[in-house]
């Protein structure tokens, strides 16, 4: 257990330390000369009204929902794929049935227009 996970945590420690070091360098090395104009949000020169009340397309929400459905499908597929040869034809037929249900989901989402980004 230790022999397997110690290297991963060592890697994590380094992977956290490097960005923290870069971050500290970035925030200390440069000059500091804030002016009111410099501190405004950069939106191509037009006066900003802030980003709090921005209305966004519902497509982003739909994509997130679809992601949950299909990512869980992928999770079910992994152990099946790793044991594929032992399960044989029976396993394949069962997985085809499972994929069929998800295929119907995809077709339904497609026909309902959830995958239409241009409209």
């Amino acid at each position, binding site marked *: 257990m230790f022999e397997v996970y110690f290297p991963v945590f060592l*890697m994590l420690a380094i*992977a956290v330390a*490097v*960005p923290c070091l870069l971050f500290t360098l970035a925030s200390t090395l*440069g000059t500091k000369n804030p002016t009111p104009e410099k501190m*405004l949000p950069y939106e191509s020169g037009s006066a900003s009204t802030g980003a709090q009340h921005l209305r966004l397309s519902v497509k*982003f929400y739909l*994509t997130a929902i679809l992601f949950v459905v299909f990512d869980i499908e992928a999770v079910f*597929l992994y152990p099946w794929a790793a044991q594929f040869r032992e399960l044989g034809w029976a396993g394949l037929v069962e997985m085809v049935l499972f994929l069929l249900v998800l295929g119907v989901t995809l077709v339904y989402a497609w026909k309902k227009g959830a995958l239409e*980004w241009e409209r």
Partner: protein
Amino acid sequence: MEFGWFLLATVLKVSFILGVTVLLYAPVFVLFERRQSAMVQDRIGPMMGGVKMPRLVIDHLQTLQMGAFGMAALCGLLFLFATAQVWQGNGTEVLFTEPVLGVRHTWNGMMFVFGALAAVHVPLGVVLPYLFHHDRLTIFGGLHALFDAIKAFTKEDVVPPEADKFLFSLAPIIAMVPALMLGAVIPFGPTLYVDYLFEQLPAEGTIGGAAIPLQVASLNIGILYMFAVGGAGIIGAALAGYSSNNKFALIGGLRAASQMVSYEVCLGLTIVPLFMLYDSLLLDEMVQWQVDHVWGVVVQPIAFVLFLTASIAEYKRVPFDAPEGESEIVAGFFLEYSSGKWLMYMLAEFFEVATSSMLIAVLFFGGWDVPFLGRGGWEAFGYAFDLSGTHWAILSEVANSHVFIVAVQIGAFVLKALLLGMLSIQIRWTLPRFRYDQIMQLCWRMILPLALVNILVTGIFILLTGI
């Protein structure tokens, strides 16, 4: 294995994989990218930054180059002369029976030294003019990129007062951590048998003694680690967009999150046929299957194309860079970042290119596998590379020794990933940016159904042929 040795091996492995990512791939990719962009846009490229050289050196650059070639020619002649002396019988009895580097025998030593000098001076003569641009030492433009990084860190770091300070600071760190951590499960070489470093290993059978697998950690979840850690990169982009208090940044962050989760699904599904073939989720076992059979790209070319596309989209590079699309939303999710924090996003992107190239090399191109090179030595079409009993016995002895084979295989892995990263940069400078609706349609309407069909076809194929 003793604890001290385990610790040493771990530290060496971690520093190798991080060193290759940070010190080799990232600079080479940055340099290649800048040269590519200069070529495509017909600019001089990263040639302005450099160290000013003395007049004397610049004036005599051509002389230096000719000198290098001259040295190479002279050393080559002397090498031939020494070889001829050896072969005429003056040194036959002692040839290679004495240690070569010990330089006991004159002709023997001359052969070695002049051969090495000739081998160094030809590349030097070829490379020399490319190291300079006018009166500056630029090293192919590499110093320019280095100075750019130093310049970025010394610029003013602007934090917008309206931004959520904590999340705004956290985002670039979160974006970079997964990119550095992904290398942990990538096998970059075969198992190293410490007790038999300088011997020829038997091609079959188990080998006793201490063995070090050249992989930082062989986790039993295998490739799921890559998806789990890689998925955390989404948070970096989404947080940056959310915390900046800027409309463009918010739109960029949302686009990034939406695109990355979509292509995460594609990444996961396109490689399921590989698991069915390799019978495993562990990356080291996948490489072993490819060593025993064929490379993954031969049996799964469609999965390779789909996976390459999805991985370019996953790290948001052109043609999939709508989240940063500078013609629409200035710089997207990292719009409000300046100085070194902006550079951290750029660096994280190049680290991701490096790790995903390494992953593709492992999944589809046999990882550290070199054709005709097995554990027991070089062998092709039933003929082994074996010169024992001849004057050149030392050559095959060195070439078939365990440590040399392992070094060649690690080099092959590094080279494969380097070429794959360059391919992705080539794609970046060949294709224009796709529209955002095209990106999402490519994911949900093309890659996803194709990946599902590929799973079924592969399943039926495996069960029918029984491979």
